[in-house]
């Protein structure tokens, strides 16, 4: 059984993700940021077209290549000893500490505790009528799924076929698709968890939503 509380405690103990910036290839490294504790921004813009803060530049064959921050956070550690020196590919250069947002925490918890049943092909997905009725009447958590159970109708260009659920037994905790929208191949359709876990998960999520303090 998954201990959700322990997971939350773990996240609380280290409410950040540490991203190690490594040398993409050999070359001479020149740090643009030299002191730990500096706040950096990840790529931005509607299409993530604006690069993040310039962290360092690596020069190989007279070709200076910039290394930008990919996420928001704070530089926690810099290998200043490498500044101006030749490094091998994969050499750790600095660590950026990215503080988790509420959504990221919830996502991390759900990823660990839910089983995601994914779409085998790009198509529109529907629940079979009996499941659909139940979901509409009393919510998705009223449906218990078992391996091999016929659960979906796959509809693509007026061709329809049934799809059986494959995965652990449990209740549907979350539905990730809309009835008239196409779901890409590999996109999640439902998240399933053991029946006795639902209450605990909900509690933890509620607590995250109300108590989690976001750090920029």
């Amino acid at each position, binding site marked *: 059984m998954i201990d959700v509380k322990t997971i939350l405690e773990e996240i609380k103990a280290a409410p950040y993700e540490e991203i190690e910036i490594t040398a993409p*290839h050999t070359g001479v490294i020149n740090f643009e940021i030299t002191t730990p504790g500096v706040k950096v921004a990840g790529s931005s*813009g509607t*299409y993530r*077209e604006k690069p993040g803060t310039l962290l360092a530049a690596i020069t190989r*064959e*007279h*070709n200076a*290549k910039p290394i930008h921050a990919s996420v928001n956070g704070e530089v926690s550690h810099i290998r200043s000893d490498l500044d101006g020196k030749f490094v091998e590919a994969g050499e750790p250069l600095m660590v950026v500490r990215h503080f988790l947002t509420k959504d990221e925490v919830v996502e991390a918890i759900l990823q660990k505790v839910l089983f995601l049943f994914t779409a085998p092909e790009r198509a529109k997905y529907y629940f079979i009528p009996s499941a659909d009725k139940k979901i509409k009447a009393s919510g998705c958590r009223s449906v218990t799924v078992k391996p091999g159970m016929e659960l979906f109708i796959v509809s693509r260009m007026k061709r329809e076929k049934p799809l059986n659920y494959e995965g652990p037994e449990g209740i549907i905790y979350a539905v990730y698709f809309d009835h008239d929208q196409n779901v890409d191949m590999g996109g999640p359709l439902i998240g399933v968890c053991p029946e006795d876990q639902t209450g605990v998960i909900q509690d933890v999520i509620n607590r995250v939503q109300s108590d989690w303090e976001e750090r920029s």
Partner: protein
Amino acid sequence: MDIEKRIAELAERLAYIRDIFGERDNANITLLASKLDEFSEREKTAQPPEKVRLLQQLEELFVFLEKKLETDLTPMDRVRIVRHPLRVSLKDILENVYDNYTEIGGQDEYSIDPSMLIARAYITRRRGDKVFHQPVMVIGQEKGHGQEFRNGGSVKPWGNAKALQYMKVAEIERIPIHAYVSTPGAFPVEDYPGAAQQIARNIYEMAGLRTPVVSVISEGGSGGAEAIGLSDLRLMFSHGYYSVISPEGAAAIESGIRQGQRAPAELIEACARRLKITAQDNLDMGYIDRIVQEPHLGARAYHYDFFKSLRQEIIKATDEVYLRMGGLNFFRARAVARNKAADAAEAENMYVSWTLDDAACDRLVWRRYQKYRNMAKQAFIDMRTPSTRFFSRTQNLLWSGYSFIRYDFLGKHEKKIGKALRDVEGEVRVVVNKITAPLRRGKPKNAVLACDPEKKQKLLELSQPEQGVCLDDWGWSYVSPRAREDKAVTCPNARISGCLDLWAPDLYGDFAGVCAHCGHHFPMEYQWYLSNVFDKDSILEFNAEIEAGNPLEYPGFDKKLEDAKKKTGRKSSCITFEARIDNVKIVCATLYSAFRGGSVGAAEGEKFIRALARARKKHYPFLAYVHGTAGIRIQESLNGLIQMPRVTMAVRRYIEAGGLYLVLYDTNSYAGPVASFLGCSPYQFSIRSANIGFAGPGVIKETTGIDIPPDYHRSYQALARGHIQGIWDRREVRKNLKQALLTIGGRNLYYR
């Protein structure tokens, strides 16, 4: 009640004056404000007769000072006048100038594009006791006195498409078109049909429209104005502006500010002055035919006298176009010419039939071409000596004569004789086959044909590299100077495609600037194409002496031009030459980005037109190779902008003569040229990784507020939108051009 209304009107007039003069202090405005306040105070206690007297005095003061303020108007004030919500709009004109009208192609917000208004209207005229309704197609941008859905008269591509549709309807119905231009510029989105491509289509079609077009310019904002502004007679409102770019845009470029920042107001004022955008400036330069005088400080919806004079002017202009086309017009044509400067109140009383026969339509289109061909002739520098000019003129005459004899006279007979000979040969073959059939009866039908052993060996064996067969493709005649640098280069797609770094001598040398992993095309110098696409030593440049100038004496521009000339060793951003591709002779015009970003001004336009004429006379295919163009050269203002219709008309003339007009884009091609003489080509191709569009991302964000994806202008997007017909690899340009020459094209090419 009446007094209150009159006071409110005066307050509105004062607010309008303040809007027009912007931040500037003016003693007359202060005086008007204080007098109005003073009157408001006194009005509370004064008796009614006294009130009326004071109000009358105040109104007279307003009229007097408005007249005085008129002389203080700067070009930027005029820009504010045309953009003011009280400015007379097309609907006001339809209501007050025409006798009746029906709006077509949508109503108010229920329209494919509410900023483009189209109406069938008529003007009633009398001839004795008889009443005639003369129908017209009225097309124009509608600003709608600040109605948000009108988008300020900024027309979307589909709005321009609608305008074109109804221009064609007018052509079929043989009724004149009155085009009212009132736009700050086109809405720069690329969604089908695309801002640039649609404007190009409009200009191309209007160049050959077989019905008279009279345009009236209120706000002539760049390409958006040209989309409906090509006409036989061009009028302009006295307080309007007509420019290649908004003064704000010019100031932003001049000051080099970044997106979201604002240029200083003084610089905007200065740019408005330098660009020579007013009606008088445009009349002096010859880009409009007449000015329609407006009331002081600009026409507003309640200036009924203005509508009356506009009606006379528009009737007179339309009459003039029809009377010029011939027929029995001796006295009336003279009467119209005589009235040019007068108020023309008689225009309505004189009847002119608004119909043209086929021959007159031909003359109309030809005169329109001539009108635009003669524009901007003083705006470039022609350093040719008189003897060179004489030689060039004689050469042109000889080509024309040769072309007529070789292709039009002998060619026709040759074709007829050739066809007859082929027919006879076909007939003879059938008869011979019939006669010899018994002799061939004994032979098996599928017998193996005897083959020359040497030929057979060649066909069956692999190529022999040691003989140099495979090595030919690897040597480029021109290698970029960047290939001499000892450095690695990172492909911009490295993050997505995982491309490895490339060594510059490999990339810019052997690989011709193409990423070996993902195929990304790094920009290459135009010299690479000149050397590697055309046959060796086949390039013969002409008209190199035509030089870009500074016709508006734009401050600081002489220096910039000099620098560009020194840097490139050339005199304009357009190179025109004759060349051969695998022995097929062509004429090519190249716009290259090293010279002022490949921008097009009067010199470039003239060179392009002359090259087209040369290709037409010599029956050569024409290639427009666009190494890069940033648009129309803003420092030349209208001298540059007018190249859009001017060159497009020359392109049309060439295509109609049966030529093949191919356009090949490389690197970045934007704005005016793409929205006219390049975009109108039915055969547009692009080198991979080029960007093609109307406005750059910054301008799109600034004008529409839309954040566009980074790949918005990529050639693949242009292909997906149907703007271009294919994408070529740089290394295969020569092969593809040869293929295009063989498979596409007009009927009159010499090698057909």
